[in-house]
């Protein structure tokens, strides 16, 4: 295993220590339980925006803590959902009195842990909502699976909701916005190589020199299909068409019903993309794919969107939601409207995403 680390068990702890030393003006770190939070938290009257998940996806989520984005991020061990106590402690630390929104990627572990955390917070009288991100079109149905995974749209939701929270959206409005981003965003990813979980010490899967995995998530897991390596234009087309031609996706998620004071099943439907839609195009490196290759993907994606009648009004290109050193990429398209564009353009100042500040 070739990594710039000391002991596998110390990776997350030492990463956090490094972040604390590197960005004291931006974030603070709390240890045991571990979380990263805004140096200026809590912000009175602002909804506290929190996300979290396994480590190994850097810069997500710790790299997205700061003005205009998250108030706190809870890093689990590599590829392992964090625990409810991390999430609850983080919430109490950044609570500005306007409630907490948990942005939760749809993985069984994340969902269960964030639900337990929300229950713990409510027991202490803090208002909290959990909104799921489940945007991975590689997962076709939700009846016979754990439902679509939360992938690239998470980054966009954190940026957009972060700007909205900064603007003063209340918990209800912010939850609605997050849900709107989620149902309008779709992603799909692929891998050229596996990655190595530090504590496991060997590649999660083996791929032949001429093979690739299509339909991967972000946890180094194998994808839905293994196929022969193809030129990037064909790969881009495969991912983009799966996204653009994806039909309405219906599933039931659990959200908190503030009226009834209980968890409620909510049916959500992702509307398909339509000719004339304005989109944000997000080309993401899985961590080991170098910058030189990403514009080549964007070039083809642009052509396909044009052909399909989608207008790219904003883009994001780089390594933002990764699987350690995996080579590969994912594509996310998010249907935009004036509200989303304005929020996307708003200032942001985090380790991983920064503009106008």
């Amino acid at each position: 295993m070739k990594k710039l680390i000391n002991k596998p068990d110390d990776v997350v702890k030492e990463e956090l220590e490094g972040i604390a030393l590197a960005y004291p003006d931006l974030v603070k770190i709390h240890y045991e339980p571990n979380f990263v939070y805004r140096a200026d938290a809590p912000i009175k009257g602002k909804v506290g925006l929190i996300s979290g998940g396994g480590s190994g996806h850097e810069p997500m989520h710790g790299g997205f803590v700061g003005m205009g984005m998250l108030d706190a991020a809870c890093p689990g061990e590599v590829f392992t959902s964090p625990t409810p106590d991390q999430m609850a402690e983080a919430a109490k630390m950044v609570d500005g009195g306007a409630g907490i929104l948990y942005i939760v990627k749809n993985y069984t572990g994340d969902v269960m842990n964030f639900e337990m955390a929300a229950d713990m917070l409510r027991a202490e009288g803090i208002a909290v909502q959990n909104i799921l991100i489940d945007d991975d079109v590689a997962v076709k149905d939700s009846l016979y699976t754990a439902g679509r995974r939360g992938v690239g749209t998470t980054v966009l939701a954190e940026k957009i909701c972060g700007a909205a929270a900064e603007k003063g959206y209340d918990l209800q409005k912010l939850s609605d916005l997050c849900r709107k981003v989620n149902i309008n965003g779709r992603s799909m990813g692929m891998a050229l190589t596996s990655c190595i979980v530090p504590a496991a010490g060997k590649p999660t899967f083996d791929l032949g020199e001429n093979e690739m995995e299509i339909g991967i998530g972000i946890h180094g897991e194998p994808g839905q299909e293994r196929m022969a390596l193809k030129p990037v234009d064909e790969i881009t087309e495969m991912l983009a068409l799966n996204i653009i031609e994806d039909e309405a996706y219906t599933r039931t998620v659990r959200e908190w019903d503030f009226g009834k004071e209980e968890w409620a099943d909510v049916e959500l439907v992702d509307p398909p993309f339509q000719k004339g839609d304005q989109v944000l195009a997000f080309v993401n490196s899985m961590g080991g794919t170098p910058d030189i290759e990403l514009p080549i993907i964007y070039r083809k994606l642009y052509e396909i969107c044009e052909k399909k009648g989608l207008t790219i009004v904003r883009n994001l290109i780089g390594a933002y939601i990764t699987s350690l050193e995996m080579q590969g990429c994912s594509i996310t398209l998010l249907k935009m409207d004036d509200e989303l564009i304005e929020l996307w353009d708003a200032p942001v100042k985090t380790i991983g995403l920064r503009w106008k500040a």
Partner: protein
Amino acid sequence: MPITTADVLDYLQEVADVIGANKEHLTDLDSAIGDADHGINMNRGFQNVLKKLSSVEDKDAGTILKTAGMALVSSVGGAGGPLYGTAFMQAGTAVAGKYELEAVDLLAALEAALKGVVMRGKANLGDKTMVDAITPAVDAMREVVQNGGSTLEALKRATEAAEKGMKDTIPMLAKKGRASYLGERSVGHQDPGATSSYLLINAMLEIAQGKGQD
């Protein structure tokens, strides 16, 4: 001889040892259809359980099990953390206040554990999860206990059933958890959670046998 709180403590130590010894095996299984962390997570969790036990050594079995459950919830993470954490907490609730556990108490604890897992994870039998190992174990145990069998007999049958249930996950197509994303590709692999569940049930048998009791 009933199961004492000393036995419960021994059991948790045994589980920690067995999970430690099977860490790589569980992680390998999780590599095939998951994200290569199940053994690592479980090991971290039970090491944390051991740390938390000293403060409850003299408490009742319910308190010990609930403490273990909370330790798991706050250190395992992933799917395993809430599921096993809930299982132990519910088992603890089922035997709250007791210092000695008869076969019927053990059955109640295991039934509560399973209920907790299903409540939290909503998996059905055949979804290729830990439920597929725990359910047959509970059923087997119930049969023995209802017929007046001994704790040892009940645990023997439960372990056999859990082992079969674990192996039966191999041909299954996963419908819950991370493996479900693989669709057809999940077929042919043994579920890591079902495997750890078998190990946890087998560890009870080891403890009971270690007591040399009937």
